[in-house]
């Protein structure tokens, strides 16, 4: 599995994703925001961080980067795309995913572990999880409050495109378990075609016991299982 990790000025989880892909036996490659081609890759990942300092709106300026045309073409052609945190914000800002990420309702940056319930296990990203499985992984963001109009939310729910929801340990999506005020406790979603996903929590930070959780691994190994595992660049 060859994974292109796109680095924007201000990305700061590119390296973490890189190590994570290596860990599971995939072949990561960095792409720079000024590149115009992605090259021969199986998966594209947009990392977390503060592209362009989060100035204007988180993820907004990154959508103007030269590489984004190639990313959009890759999406159109059905290639799998994962956006984590700032990557999720960029996907929403660029229209590859619906909705927007607003400032956390606490108005504070939120950094802690959260619990997520897996809502859909048929997507190419979540097929290794069990339905209703509770995952633990860190969040670290100031703008993770997912917002979309009622109609969009309705469609997301109806089409099984809500991938993860913030819940408590019992799997209940209670308000106190919602770290940022997201509509319907949404933590991660899928596009209509099923090949583009974005999430605010950081699965790549939950892949080794020493980090406190390995629950993020499933997302990456699910993708790996679709491609020849060891294809080193």
């Amino acid at each position, binding site marked *: 599995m060859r994974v292109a990790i796109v680095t924007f*000025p*201000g990305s*700061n*989880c590119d*390296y*973490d994703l890189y*190590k*994570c892909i290596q860990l599971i036996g995939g072949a990561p490659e960095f792409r720079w925001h000024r590149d115009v081609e992605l090259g021969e890759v199986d998966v594209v990942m947009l990392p*977390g*961080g*503060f592209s*362009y*300092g*989060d*100035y204007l709106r988180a993820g907004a300026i990154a959508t103007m980067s030269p590489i984004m045309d190639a990313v959009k073409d890759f999406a159109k052609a059905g290639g799998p795309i994962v956006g984590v945190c700032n990557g999720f914000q960029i996907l929403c800002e660029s229209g590859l995913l619906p909705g927007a990420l607003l400032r956390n309702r606490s*108005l*504070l*940056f*939120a*950094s*802690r572990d959260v619990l997520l319930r897996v809502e859909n296990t048929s997507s190419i990203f979540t097929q290794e999880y069990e339905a209703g499985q509770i995952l633990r992984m*860190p969040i*670290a963001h*100031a703008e993770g409050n997912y917002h979309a109009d009622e109609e969009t939310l309705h469609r997301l729910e109806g089409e099984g495109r809500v991938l993860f929801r913030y819940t408590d340990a019992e799997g209940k999506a209670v308000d106190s378990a919602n770290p940022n005020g997201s509509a319907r406790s949404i933590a991660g979603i899928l596009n209509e075609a099923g090949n583009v996903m974005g999430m605010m929590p*950081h699965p*790549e*930070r939950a*892949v*080794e016991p*020493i*980090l406190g959780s390995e629950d993020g691994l499933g997302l990456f190994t699910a993708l790996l299982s679709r491609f020849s595992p060891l294809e080193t660049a």
Partner: protein
Amino acid sequence: MTDRPDSTGVLTVPSVMPREGDPPITAELVEEHGLSPSEYDRVLEILGREPTFTELGVFSAMWSEHCGYKNSKRLLSLLPTTAPWVIQGPGENAGVIDIGDGLALAFKIESHNHPSAVEPYQGAATGVGGILRDVFTMGARPIAILDSLRFGDLDSGRVRYLFSGVVKGVGDYGNCVGIPNIGGEVFFDRGYEGNPIVNAMCLGLMKAEDLIKGEAEGVGNPLMVVGARTGRDGIHGATFASEELSEDSQARRPQVQVGDPFTEKLLLEASLELIKSGHITGIQDMGAAGITSSASEMAGRSGNGVEIDMELVPVREPGMTPYEILLSESQERMLVVAKSGSEKAVRDILAKWELEAEEIGRVTDDGLFRVREGDRVVAEIPSLPLTEGCPTYEREGIESEEIRELRCADLTRFNEVDDDQSETFLKLIASPNIASKRWLYGQYDTTVRTGTAVRPGGDAGVVRLRGTRRAVAATTDCNGRYVYLNPRSGTLAAVAEAARNLVCVGALPTAVTNNLNFGNPLKPHIYYQFRESVLAMAEACKLFETPVTGGNVSFYNETDGVAIYPTPVIGMVGVLEDVDHITRHAFQNEDDTIILLGDNTDELGASEYLYVMEGLVAGEPPSVDLLGERGLQHAVLAMIQDGLLNSAHDVSEGGLACALVESALGEGERRLGVQVTLRDALPVLPLLFGEAQGRVVVSCDPRSADEVLRHAKRHGVHGRAVGKVVPSDEGFRIDGRATSLEADIEILAELFFGAIPTLMDGAGPS
């Protein structure tokens, strides 16, 4: 610069000329620049003539306390600075130590107290920015941040404003650059009401061979400014001497530096790439006094000279004078000495990171710091006397009578109480100095870079080192109340506590950086505090074999003539040879045996108990037995390395009762109960809440308890099993001879985790 005569040939250089419009040098102007008459005589001697206005500004900055260390240098020279593992001691942007496996750790702490008092958000943010640059200019990639903060009591709106602004500033900057925060401290006490303390520490990792220094090597090599443009930010206060102070001039010349972490991130990547590329010979952060200090210090260290042209510096605003450009403290800038012929390569690397690099001068062989404005030379000063020639002083130090009285206050009346302390106990748990600091570090990214093995909230932060079995740990510590009441024992306690914290996570204490936050050193009672403190630090660091590789001095922390508590913050780093030794402060299993190492004493002086319950800052702070402390720490490390311990936690503010609560609650996810019996023949208050030093609460499997006690004995440490970990619904219970303390775990958790959020709720937007 190419179209000008060879700048290394002395003969072709025109002589120094005052600029048109420069104010005349008068005794008042000299005084406003903070130079004493005898210091000014030294300036005349060095120059052999009267300085220009620009030169006066340069001397004023370089001989300020901040750059020149005039009131601290002599005492600081007494600190131990060497050990086989020290690669770089004091004198560079950051200290560097060997941590094994070919890796080196660069680390340093720095204060931003004054800027944070004026504008908490930007002050704290730029403080973090500065310390990151100190570390990555050494060639090290920053891997962790710690922050050490002090404020007044949270019941004041102004304090809450400062606190929330500072925390947001520290967080936003580090979060954006992508460096995890792994720890630090915050302490609230009226002693810091008008004058908060904001110290930031950074750790960076590199291969030992990648070390690069801030030196201007190679005559003829070009000097380049890289990064942000120069504006009128934070120009030395003395600037105002050049014009009448008016509302208008205030408005036009904001002294506040605005941080841009986005540019910093790019600068970080570009700098590390530059250093790897081999195209540069030196690099230095432009910190205090900007271009002046970076250029002259680089010249001074190498023994060469530099010539720079102010017209070549990219500026943000038109009409800036050489004086302003030289002294501007605009952030996110570096000074680089490139190899001759590598100018384009340097520019290309910066361009890749969307940054500018401009050539502003050259390294010369004449040992002079020369500043041009086009064809005119506006300053020409011998580099070495400028950077090293600042007069240093030893001042008179006398203890304050008033503080001595406080220390000698009679506290025996507190030995009389023996009734139920449950209410007191709950009050203490909810004191912001004891309660969980999650409100604060919940705003800091602690997990980015996927290296953080122990996050903030424990005794010390731990970062694993990828590709090895190793990890590094770091902590900052200082109880200013102790140091206020007794500078000597208070400072010994700070060093001892830092080392103890490292040992509790399983690390061997290795080296120290310090931040000496004090009042006005010209006052004898402040200088007394400073002297006693530095002497004690030297003694403790020698004994713990933790050399001091750098640090920072912040004087004049006073409001309306009242100084903060003397606060010599100890930033200590340690090494774990095996990540399997990482130990946490939280109890892990029901039925584990709780063992107390070290002695309970009847000391109640300077305690959080006295502050919270009586509003008192008084009494003799807990005494420190350095040798006993060393034995304890060796014992704990040995137990951890033998795999005996399930948790280890040092006893500090709030005493034994509070330490037990912290271990029971952990980070709040898996709460456990506690049943402990204490047989000491001690008065109730010191037994429960006294802050005797040299104590650690550990827990282990009951079957290992004997082995743990044997280890303790072998190291001459008093150890005894005091109880066990129980399910949380069995509650929290301490039985003493004359008292018993009981509380519900849920209530404790609510107070412990809820205290600061409740106080900060409705603090308003920042």
